[in-house]
C-alpha cells in the first residue's frame, strides 16, 4: 500500500486507481450514511477522490493515506450538505434475514426502523461522528482528526448524537408505530 501511495504521489494514475478501488465501497458507504442521499454521496466520494489525487504530492506520510482520504471525504460530505440535490437514486441492499423467527424479525425491524429514523433526524455533523466511531470503529482521536475538530469536541458531539438518537427511540416507544398504524 505504501508503495502504491508513493507511486501515486509521483503522478502514477494506475497506482492511484489501485489504491482507490478497494476503498471505494467503504468510502461510499460512509458518505451514504452521513448524507442519506445517493447522488450526494457519490458526488462527495468523487470530490474527495479527485481532491486526494490533486493533493497527493503534499501528503507528507504515505502511511496516513487512509486517514487522510477519510478526512477529505468527511469534508466533502459537509460541503455537499449545503447543496444536496432533491433527486436521489436508491439501490437498497438486500439484507439477509433468513432463519430468524418472526418475533425476532419484527423486533429487529422495529429497532432498525427506529434507529434509521433517529439517524435521519441527526445533523450531518452528528451522523458523521456516529459513523466514524460506530461504523468505522475509529478511536476518538482518529475521528477527531477526520472531522478536523478537537477530541473533546468530538466526544461531546458523539454524546449529543447518541442522546438525540436515544431520545428519538424513546419517543417512538411511547407511542404506537406510525407505520404500524398505517399498515395495520
Amino acid at each position, binding site marked *: 500500500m505504501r508503495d502504491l501511495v508513493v507511486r501515486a504521489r509521483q503522478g502514477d494514475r494506475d497506482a*492511484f486507481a489501485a489504491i482507490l478501488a478497494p476503498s*471505494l465501497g467503504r468510502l461510499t458507504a460512509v458518505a451514504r450514511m452521513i448524507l442519506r442521499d445517493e447522488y450526494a454521496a457519490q458526488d462527495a466520494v468523487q470530490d474527495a477522490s479527485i481532491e486526494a489525487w490533486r493533493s497527493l504530492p503534499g501528503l507528507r506520510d504515505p502511511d496516513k493515506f487512509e486517514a487522510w482520504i477519510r478526512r477529505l471525504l468527511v*469534508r466533502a460530505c459537509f460541503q455537499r450538505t449545503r447543496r444536496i440535490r432533491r*433527486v436521489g437514486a436508491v439501490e437498497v441492499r*438486500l439484507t439477509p434475514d433468513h432463519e430468524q423467527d418472526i418475533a425476532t424479525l419484527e423486533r429487529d425491524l422495529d429497532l432498525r426502523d427506529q434507529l434509521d429514523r433517529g439517524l435521519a433526524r441527526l445533523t450531518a455533523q452528528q451522523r458523521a461522528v456516529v459513523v466514524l466511531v460506530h461504523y468505522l470503529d475509529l478511536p476518538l482521536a482518529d475521528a477527531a482528526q477526520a472531522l478536523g475538530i478537537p477530541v473533546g469536541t468530538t466526544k461531546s458531539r458523539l454524546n449529543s448524537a447518541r442522546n438525540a438518537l436515544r431520545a428519538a427511540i424513546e419517543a417512538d416507544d411511547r407511542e404506537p408505530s406510525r*407505520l404500524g398504524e*398505517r399498515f395495520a
Partner: protein
Amino acid sequence: MTNEQFSAQLRQHLLSTADERVVQGQLASILDQVAVVPQRPKLVARLPWFAGGVGSTSSSQLRWALLVALALIGLTIAGAIYVGAPGPRITADQEVVGPTLEPGPEATPDRAGCLPFLTQFDEATTYTADTHSLSITVSVPATPAEPWMGWRDSFGLTSGACTDRTGPGGIAASEVTEVDARACAVSAAAVNTYEEAVAAVSTAQGIDVLLRTEETLGGYSATLFDLRVHDDLNACSNGGLHLVDGVPSFGPGSGIGLYLVNVDGTTLAVALHGYHSWSSDFRATVDEILGSMQIDPSRPEESIAPPPAFTSGGIRNCSPADTVFDAPGTYTAPAGSLSLSVDVPGTRDDPWLGLTSRFSLRSLKGACTDFGRGGGWLEASEVTRVETEACAGAGVAVDTFEEALAAISSAKGINVDERTDVTLAGYTGTRLGLRLDIDSNACAEQQIPLLNGMTRFDPGARYPLYLIDVDGKTLAIALYETDIWRPDVTAQVDEILASLRIDTTASSEPVAADCVEFRGPSRYTAPAGSMSVMVSVPGSDAEPWIGSRRHFSLLRAACADQQGTGWIEASEVDLVDMAACERGTVEIHSTEEAIAAVGTAQGIEVTSQTDAKLGGYSGTKFDFEIPEITSRCADNQIPLVDGVNPFDVGLDYTLYLIDVNGKTLAVALYGPANWSATVSDTIEIFLDSMQIEP
C-alpha cells in the same frame, strides 16, 4: 439499556445496513476525471527558480527582509500554480497566452523574460483569475517603471518585472479548507466554515497575531490578521509554515497580512507577502488593488475539471461522464446486466441528458442541473428487489417477471390503477399505473424507494411503470412527473420507447465510460486543451463513430471493440518534438512557432504545406509521412505535437495547426490514404462543421 448496549446496537445497525456497493461506473467516472486533472505541484520543487537577485540599495536588514520576501514570492508563485483551475482573463493590450502546461525544470523564460506561468503587466490592467470556485478580478495600476507580474493558473500578483523578479511584495489568494494551527507539529485541521478558519488562525501556534481587525474585501465581510511568523519553526520542513492551504508557506520571521473573507460560506484567504517591509507608497498601491477587488462566487465547482467542462450546445455543469443530446442521437446505458439503447430526439433548444452509469434520461432546460418543469424523464432498471414496505426497510428479492409483478402489486401503499399488456423492443410485459399513497415522513428526503436502481418516487404522484420480461430478467422502465409533462414531451417519450433496443448479451461491465457511440446524426463536443471543439457526426448503425469524452478524438468504430479505420484527433499544442525523440522538444508560444517547428522537425517528411482554415480560424495544413523506423522513439511512434496520438512509421498523416486567438489547435488525421470514400467524406463533414470555442 446501558450506554454500552446502546452503542453495540447502534454499531450492529450501522454494520448491517451499511451499503458498500460501488455503483456501476463510479470508479471509472472518478478515474476519468483523474486522467485529466493534474496534481498540485509540491511547493518546494519550484524554489530554485526563484532565487532572484536582491536590490543593490538595500541595507543588510532590508536585504534579508527582501530575500525572505522574494523566497515567499517564489513560493507564492509556485504554490499558486493551482492546477485544475482555468487560467486568468486579462484585459489589456498585452499579449496574452493561454494556460500553459505545468512548466518542468527545463522551462525557459519567454521573450519578455517571463517564465511560462507569468505575464508581465506594464500598464494598467484588469486581472481576473480563479480560485477553486471563486473568480477574482482586480485592477492593477502597473506602469513600465513599476510593473507587476500576474500568474496564469491561479490568482497571484507580484510586484516587479519578469527579468529580475524583484519587488517588495505580492498578493496570493486561495480558498481555505485547512489551517495548520500547530505549526507543523501535526497534520493541519480541516475548517469547514469561515468562523472555524478565523478561530483557527487566531489561536494558531507558530505565529503572533499582532493585530486583528474586521474589514470588508470585495464587498464581503473579512478579518484582517497582521501576523508575525516565529523565527523558530523547527517542525516545519523547509522552514515554511503552511498556515492556510492554497496560499504559499510563510517563512520564519516574516510579517504577513492575511485576509480571511467570508464569501457566502466559502472562506477565501488573501495573503499579503512582505507586508511588514512595504513602503507607504507600495502599501497604497496594494490598497488600491484590494479596493478594486471583485469576487464572483458564481463559478460552479462542476466546471472545474476537466477544463473546459464537457459541454454541449452551451449547456454547462454537465459531468464529463454523461451525455448531452442537443441534437438527435443514440443513448446507450446499462440497466443491470442489460444494455439499453434508444434514439433521443434532442435539439439545441430542447436538449436531453443521459447518465452513463445507469439508464436515466431527462430533458434539460438551461444547464445539467436545471431540468426545468414539464420536461421528460424516464429511467430503467433490471429489477432484483422490490420494497414491499417502502421506508420501513422491508422488501423482497425477485427473480422472475411474475415475482416482480406480484411484489409490486401487493406492496403496501402502492395502488395499481392501470394494467395493460405491452410489447417493447420485441419483449412482452405490462404497463402499470402506480400511485404511491405512503406516508413518506419516515423516508429519507420524504421520497419513496420502490425498485432497486431507480430514483425514488414522490408520495401521492402517479407513475407509469413498464415491467418487461426480457428472457427471464425483469426490466422496469419508469416515467417520472408525467402529470406535468408538456404534450410534446409525451410524444417524444413515446418515440424514445418505440426506439428501444435491448442487448441481453452485453457484459455486466459498463461500456467504457470514456466512449460515446454515435449511431445516428448527432453533434460531438469535447475538450482540446483549454479549448472546446464541436463537430457534426453523421453516424449510423452501419457506420458508427465513437468519441472520447476526455479529449477530442473520433474513430470510425463501435465502443465494443474500439477498432476501425478513420481517426481524427484535436488538441491544444504546447510542445513540439523537433528531433524525433532525441531531446528536441520545444515549448511553443505561438502558432507561428508551432508551424515553424513542425515544418523543420526531424523524422517526418512533409509532402505539402498549405494555408488552411478550420472553424473560422486560420492556420496551416501539413501532409506528411514518417518514412523510416526511428529506434529512439518508443514503439516507433513520433510524438510530434503534444495532446494528440503519436504518429506511426509507414503511414501518412494530415496535421492542421490553427491559430485560435493566440492558442494553437492541432487537428490530426491518421492514415487518410487508407480511408474508404465514406470515411473520407465523413471526416470532411467533421472539418467543415467544426466549431471552436477558445
